[in-house]
């Protein structure tokens, strides 16, 4: 088995990398994050031109039929450049959920617009603690045949403030903990009773808490009332892409920290010559190697249709924990300058913390693995 990128994947990755290297420098990224723009429209348009928005979708819905490994190939450069564009929110979460329910004409219609870059979607699933298990979804949805009514709240919905459509997970039946009775619905962010509280996250992303107060949803906007499998596979695929971003960030941390340690001098010598610093760099390299291997192997399993929930949990747990430890080591090795907002180092740390917190942190996923899932 060959776990290297194909020539096509390498080319795609190279073109994304080259573009970001030129147009998404750390300085440009910081200027964007401190502006009032949630993301760069030019960068987004370039992604449309490169075909990245239609990459993950089958040809039957207007995509180019890209694989999970294709997404890993571009995910690493995304992480390396600390991208804040709503690729995860609109394409990988909302888009994938819509693609999985594309027999519904409304879903197909929104998906078409999302992959053409003329609309943005957001996936309103999160309820506060990572919501890694869709069975825990509690947002209430009362069905009355012709229409549904939503009451409750979603937390930290990425890209919600910019979204033209929300893809909402909710519970039509039963209590949290049950896999049945989960619905997937389309809701306009401006619909009566929907209230957004927008904010920026520590890793520079636009997000919002979304409250639903007796929000009416017509029956044709209900994509599924048995959505456990769709939600699980959507989140599962997104985990792999998120992990790719994490690994990209970890690689950048290792490179930048190694470069710092060989140029920063104290006591008349480069700090890399102190054994404790050298060993920390060695540990960082070990961690990056492990995380990247798990990423590539797990992505291949997903592509082969053989990934189990346990495999995804292994990846998310390892990337979450190793990512934090690499980032903390990078800060410590930099000394004072590592504790400032001025270097990319701390921003990688914040990105890796955010990735760890999403869809279940490493503690959660280790427990899933340990329980013999």
């Amino acid at each position, binding site marked *: 088995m060959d776990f290297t990128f194909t020539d096509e994947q390498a080319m795609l990755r190279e073109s994304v990398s080259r573009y970001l290297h030129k147009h998404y420098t750390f300085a440009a990224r910081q200027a964007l994050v401190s502006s009032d723009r949630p993301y760069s429209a030019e960068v987004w348009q370039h992604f449309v031109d490169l075909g990245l928005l239609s990459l993950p979708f089958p040809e039957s819905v207007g995509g180019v039929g890209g694989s999970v490994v294709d997404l890993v190939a571009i995910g690493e450069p995304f992480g390396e450049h600390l991208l804040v564009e709503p690729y995860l929110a609109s394409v990988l979460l909302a888009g994938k959920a819509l693609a999985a329910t594309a027999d519904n004409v409304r879903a197909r219609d929104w998906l078409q617009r999302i992959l053409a870059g003329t609309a943005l979607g957001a996936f309103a699933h*999160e309820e*506060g*603690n*990572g*919501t*890694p*298990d869709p069975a*825990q979804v509690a947002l209430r949805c009362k069905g009355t045949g012709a229409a549904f009514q939503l009451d409750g709240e979603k*937390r*930290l919905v990425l890209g919600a403030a910019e979204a033209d459509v929300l893809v909402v997970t909710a519970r039509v039946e039963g209590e*949290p*903990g049950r896999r049945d009775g989960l619905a997937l619905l389309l809701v306009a962010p401006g619909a009566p009773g929907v209230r957004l*509280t927008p*904010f*920026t*996250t*520590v*890793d520079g992303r636009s*997000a919002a*808490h979304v409250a639903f107060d007796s929000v009416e949803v017509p029956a044709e906007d209900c994509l599924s009332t048995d959505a456990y499998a769709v939600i699980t596979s959507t989140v599962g695929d997104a985990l792999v892409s998120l992990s790719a971003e994490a690994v990209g960030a970890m690689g950048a941390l290792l490179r930048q920290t190694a470069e710092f340690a060989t140029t920063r001098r*104290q*006591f*008349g010598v480069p700090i890399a010559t*102190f054994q*404790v*610093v050298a060993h920390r760099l060695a540990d960082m390299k070990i961690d990056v190697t492990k995380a990247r291997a798990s990423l590539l192997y797990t992505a291949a399993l997903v592509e082969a249709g053989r990934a189990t929930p346990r495999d995804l949990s292994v990846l998310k747990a390892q990337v979450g924990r190793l990512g934090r430890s690499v980032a*903390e080591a990078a*800060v*410590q090795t930099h*000394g*004072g300058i*590592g*504790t*400032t*907002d*001025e270097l990319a180092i*701390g921003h990688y*740390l*914040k990105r890796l*913390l*955010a990735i760890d*917190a*999403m869809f*279940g*942190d490493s*503690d*959660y996923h280790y*427990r899933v693995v340990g329980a013999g899932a």
Partner: protein
Amino acid sequence: MDLTTGPELDAFREEVAAFLDTAPTDAIREAGRKLTSVFSPFDEVMEWHRILHRRGWAAPAWPVEHGGTGWSVEQRYVFAEEYARRNLPPLLPNGLKMIGPLLIDLGSEEQKQQHLPGILAGEDYWTQGYSEPGAGSDLASLSCAAVADGDDYILNGSKIWTTLAHRANRMFMLVRTDSSGRKQHGITFLLLDRLDLPGLQIRPIVGLDGLPEQCEVFFEDVRVPQSGRVGAENEGWAVAKHLLTHERGGSTSSPSLYRFVQTIREAAAVRTSPFGGRLVDDPVFQRDLGELEAEVASVEHVEKLAVSGHPISADLAFPSLNKTVSSELTQRLTTLMARVAGLQGLPQQLQALHVGSGAALLSDDFDLVALPYYLNSRAASIYAGTNEVQRDLIARTVAAR
């Protein structure tokens, strides 16, 4: 240390409790809730310092003749416990724990008279100007120059990581007065009794948590009086080393560490586990918090032995050991805080962190401070001498090299 509590100590506890319940203003209490650093929000903590001073309680550890309280060790713990229980903002360390005690030990009579009252009363704030861009761990290689000119020194160079310099009106600093010999020789310890000096510029540095706390300070032909020198010219290294023992000490820190444990436990009581149920009932969480509480207890035991005169504190490694243990424990506690807040800790809420902003919270106080606290505390293993350097010092007391 007396482990039994008698009626006298109980009465003292009541007296302290009554004061701490009533004296702090709402803004001071808010500053305590919004604490995300060892450095409390400046305006509120300085106001609190002045209130405590009026009660005579600003500097319990100082000698009585300089304004200390004369409390017994037991009383000092009672005070620290009641203080931490109310989540009040800790007074800033630079004056009370660093330059104040240093001047008491090594300052001239004139310097004591000139500076101690303002430190004690919370009227002055002293920033510490040691580190330079090229001189961090290798502090003795510092190069910010002082050249004698009549009764003055002319300063040229820069300092960095100078905590709260942008809020300070005083600075104690190390300057180079001679570069001909060993690098430790030729360093002079200097007091600046004002910072609004021609040629002196201060640039705040924004930290990982998004808040300005450290600064860069630039000196261009800054003229200051030589009377601010502590000790002899070129002999400042010994003065600085003396001060470092104060900086690394920390005698009654366990109550504030327990406060973290308590805060985390309270937060977990109103949060759900991703497996369902209350987080505080989750056995894995309990095990994690239990380990940290036991670690805090170890800190308590070490420092209680130390304040009781046990030889444990006579060990040469003791200051480094304390610094390493308490900084890493703080980091582990704030890591658990960030984990408990999880996703809800991710929104950036800089405005809400600002005391008195009135900005609405996206969830509760715990979620507001958890991540900034975690991020800020990454610096704990770097400032006051990195933990790598501390371990080197500890190692030297165990095995000769």
